[in-house]
């Protein structure tokens, strides 16, 4: 069962505009959420995370928003740059038992110059 869902396989935005990547989850035990970025022929790299005790976490151009009641999180990239073009994975874990971190299927972001 897909406990973490990224329903948009791809997203295309113009350079300088905002990119919004969405993620939904079904397991109410998840309390920690992460975003990873992946370039072709490389492994995913950790980007930003958020704990369920917060509803927003910001790191430079990247902000993650968490809506627990809707079981939804989103990653905002402002402003978007061509170098942000990559596949973005949403991931979730349930507390200390994070050895069972679940990933979404990924969203391919293309930022056009």
């Amino acid at each position, binding site marked *: 069962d897909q406990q973490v869902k*990224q329903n948009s396989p791809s997203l295309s935005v113009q350079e300088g505009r905002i990119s919004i990547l969405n993620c939904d989850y079904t397991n109410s035990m998840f309390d920690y959420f992460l975003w990873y970025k992946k370039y072709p022929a490389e*492994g995913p790299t950790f980007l930003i*995370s958020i704990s369920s005790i917060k509803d927003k976490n910001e790191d430079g151009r990247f902000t993650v928003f968490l809506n627990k009641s809707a079981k939804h999180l989103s990653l905002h990239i402002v402003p978007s740059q061509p170098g942000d073009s990559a596949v973005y994975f949403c991931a979730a874990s349930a507390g200390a038992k994070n*050895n*069972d971190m679940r990933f979404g*299927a990924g969203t391919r972001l293309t930022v056009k110059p």
Partner: protein
Amino acid sequence: DAGITQSPRHKVTETGTPVTLRCHQTENHRYMYWYRQDPGHGLRLIHYSYGVKDTDKGEVSDGYSVSRSKTEDFLLTLESATSSQTSVYFCAISRDRGNYGYTFGSGTRLTVV
């Protein structure tokens, strides 16, 4: 990332043959993981290790075994490869059993013909 390497990077093998993938880390991290990435599924956990000789199953462990005889090495073995095991395999490490972002290797692309 120089702290984690996977070998081989690419492999083509025949159905029914055994295959071993190697993950080597120089970070002295306790936790190591094997994931597979498939289109539409994102990353799925195969097995993980929480110490030397301590391993456990993940979400998609059938047909795979692992071993960890040293802190730095985590081996994934396909006892008898099948075409359904054609995938990209990623190893990851983490410092502790907490909510930290994983560090991933660059992946091994395995094709079973």
